[in-house]
């Protein structure tokens, strides 16, 4: 597989693992008597391992460059975080449109609020 395809795959699996691990942490730290996190936690852990397995299979002999599964997990998590930080400016600029509209909009008359001011 060429380098760009491999980078794209790392980004996809990095985003997948970052979100899954964030959701796993969320379910553990927000546990309360009415939550039922066992099945989601189990399946999400399996999918994280599945994501790691895809990379290990595709890297083949190159997997020996990583010093273990823990190291690979760190690489993919770091990739996911870096990717999120790189794409956030795009959403930041898109949100500016709504911020601009909120800044210049004229609100309809509110007779009840005016009544409050006169009291």
């Amino acid at each position: 597989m060429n380098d760009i395809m491999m980078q794209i795959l790392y980004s996809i699996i990095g985003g997948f693992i970052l979100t899954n691990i964030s959701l796993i942490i969320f379910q553990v730290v927000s546990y309360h008597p009415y939550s039922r996190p066992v099945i989601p936690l189990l399946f999400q852990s399996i999918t994280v391992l599945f994501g790691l397995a895809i990379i290990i299979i595709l890297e083949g002999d190159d997997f020996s460059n990583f010093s273990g599964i823990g190291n690979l997990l760190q690489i993919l998590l770091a990739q996911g975080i870096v990717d999120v930080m790189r794409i956030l400016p795009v959403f930041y600029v898109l949100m500016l449109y709504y911020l601009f509209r909120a800044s210049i909009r004229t609100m309809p008359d509110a007779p009840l609020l005016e009544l409050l001011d006169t009291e």
Partner: protein
Amino acid sequence: MIEGSVQIWLGFFLILLGTFWGRMGPAFLRNRYYAPILILGLFCLVIDIYELDEQGSILRNAINDFLPWFSVGFLGYYLVLIGAPTYWKTRFPQLISGWLIIFISFYLYVKYNNHISISDVFISFTSIIGILISLIFFMFLVRFVENRIPSEDPAPELTDSEKEFVRRIISKNIGVDEE
């Protein structure tokens, strides 16, 4: 190097922990420790004490490039939202200073991130596919688990004393004289 890795991943964990505790439950009953934990996590990510391994360095550099423009932009957004006429009252000092700060954040973005190419950003965009797959999968898992919970019997009717209690609370809240 181990200490550096532990510090940076502990920071990541604490930021998630602080964020989740800060958003959990009703607004009047949220965990009071979320803010210190969030700040501690940020410090763990930013403070450069130990030597880092390769991926730790990549992450630290990305954070150092990200935080200046993001924190300034966040402040700008906050000020504009306070100043905007959402609640009928425009606060011009906050509104104008907010927009100025947002423009400063653009300058900071260009200053700290000029090494990132368009193709890097396009490749990073593919991470959205992984994020969406993960979220959709999680939604299906939660739906599956929730559907397996047997429905409870309908709640019994309120007793007279409970009805009176509810009537008194509503009267008090809408300002009707009880007498």
